[in-house]
């Protein structure tokens, strides 16, 4: 089955340009997007949620200046933005967001409305991929199954229709957990999953048969993975957080050992983190964020940097990466 997938191996994630945890200036945002283009990146992912529209505005402002057929753009549905007079300076993880608030709505009608509103913010006449955002237990707690049900009977139906009519090329979920992806593969006909942090050097949930074997399940349906959060929110980029929480000691030790193995061969751990993800044939692209031109340019260089085979061989021999994980040059 041939399904549409974004061009890889590297894309650009859009949360940082929505001022996620820290403010990004307009100049830095613009420069980051131009740097991505100059580095050859042609896949961009954003969402209404990111800065309550800010990220979409910023992506659109730059991408609008480029030939539309030369890049792939994804955004999300599931949260509608509602004007919110009396703008607060920060809401949740978003610093200086636009004066809107979010309203969860996974219905069919809301998906149509959401895509259209995104087009207005982007200033573009089409997106390529629409992802149903955050239908998982991490966002909705125990009520997530109700939200999932509404999304499958609602938004999924709308997106399937949009794909049929050629309004979008592909649809899927944008989530942090493997369960909703596994269920969506059964309940509907998604093309891809933007799954953050569940296939990285440190987290192999998507590969784990005991967790449902998402990678294999995708391969059977011809679906693809877009790997968000390739550094697990910091631990693989020299930080100490994993999924935005302080990392457990065993994970810290594992990351530290991986870092030592990489350093012994003159390799940056971040480079190994990106190239490990990209080596899996189900992965269409890894999409680290970047809040300025330097970070984006560095990500592009890291994806291309040579990594000697001994790095992978040592990690494998020490059981740091699973047997069934492909590594570059060993697919």
């Amino acid at each position, binding site marked *: *089955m041939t399904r549409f997938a974004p061009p890889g191996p590297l894309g650009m994630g859009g949360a940082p340009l929505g001022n996620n945890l820290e403010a990004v200036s307009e100049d830095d945002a613009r420069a980051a997007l131009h740097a991505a283009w100059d580095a050859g990146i042609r896949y961009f992912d954003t969402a209404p949620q990111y800065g309550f529209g800010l990220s979409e505005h910023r992506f659109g402002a730059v991408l609008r200046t480029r030939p539309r057929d030369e890049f792939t753009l994804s955004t999300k549905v599931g949260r509608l933005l509602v004007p919110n007079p009396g703008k607060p300076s920060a809401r949740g993880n978003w610093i200086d967001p636009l004066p809107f608030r979010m309203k969860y709505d996974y219905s069919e009608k809301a998906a149509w409305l959401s895509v259209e509103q995104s087009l207005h913010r982007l200033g573009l006449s089409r997106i390529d991929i629409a992802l149903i955002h955050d239908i998982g237990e991490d966002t909705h707690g125990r009520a997530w*199954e*109700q939200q*999932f*049900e509404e999304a*499958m*009977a609602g938004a*999924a*139906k709308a997106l*399937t229709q949009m794909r049929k009519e050629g309004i979008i090329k592909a649809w899927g979920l944008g989530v942090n957990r493997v*369960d909703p992806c*596994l*269920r969506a*593969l*059964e*309940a*509907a*006909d998604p093309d891809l999953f933007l799954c953050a942090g569940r296939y990285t050097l440190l987290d192999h949930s998507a590969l784990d048969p005991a967790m*449902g074997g998402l990678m294999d399940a995708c391969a059977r349906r011809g679906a693809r993975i877009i790997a968000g959060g390739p550094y697990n929110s910091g631990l693989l980029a020299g930080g100490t957080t994993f999924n935005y929480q302080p990392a457990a000691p065993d994970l810290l030790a594992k990351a530290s050992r991986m870092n030592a193995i990489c350093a012994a061969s003159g390799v940056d751990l971040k480079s190994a983190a990106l190239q490990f993800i990209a080596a899996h044939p189900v992965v269409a692209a890894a999409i680290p964020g970047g809040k300025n031109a330097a970070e984006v340019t560095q990500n592009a260089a890291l994806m291309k940097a040579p990594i000697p085979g001994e790095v992978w061989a040592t990690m494998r021999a020490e059981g740091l990466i699973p047997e069934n994980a492909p590594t570059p040059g060993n697919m």
Partner: protein
Amino acid sequence: MLLTAQIDAHHHVWRLARGDYDWLTPNLPIHRDYTLDDLRPKLGEITGTVLVQAASTEAETRYLLDIARTSDGLVRGVIGWTDFAAPDAPDRIGAMARDPLLKGLRPMLQDMEDLEWILRPEVQPALRALVRHNLRLDLLIRPRHMNHIHRLAEAHPDLPVVIDHGAKPAIRIGLFQPWGGQLRYLARTTNWCCKLSGLVTEANHLQWDLDDIRPYVDHLIACFGPERLIWGSDWPVVNLAGGYAAWRATTDTLLGGLSAAEKAAVMGGNAMRFYGLG
């Protein structure tokens, strides 16, 4: 005391050397021949069966009809196959329907790329031919087909349809919704029947227990009622997940809340009526 014959309304047999079982790959533990002689010792009080196609060829349907004819009255009906999209499908269906043992046809929708294949214009004449020739449609669908499948009932209100295996909810990963809500809608808006079969192979094959299966069976009973549920074993596929006797015992327990008459309907009467078994 059961009031009517007990019927296994869904099982298969196969001979691998026939060579048209595309899905039956060597890695599967059921990759070997299965005949009626393997089935008979498992049947207990069951005196009649419905033999269902397992290959997308008319040759397999002829093979199954031959087996039915020589089964000493055990196989009361065959669910066969023909290509519904073929331009001459209505004529072929008419010719096949002359064999009184053929009770219905089953396209293998679950494996098709186009989830809405059954709604394609070129398939509609075949569906109308089924109605004309008093044949039933076995609907081999999965939850991913359920956003659109109600349109089949809208287009062909007179077509007798049975949903195979409760539409195969992915029990192993806890998929209940949206399957549950969509099935309730289908049950409410159509006169379709549903087979109580094939569920344990959707659970964890090696580890399922009664409590994994119970909510799904309860839901099937709640949606279709004891008058539109039809029991089947899905043997030999059921061997992947515990085998014939385990599924039989499971359904015995899970149907415990029904009256004797209701249980008899699920275990045989409904199959007799729906498929017109002699």
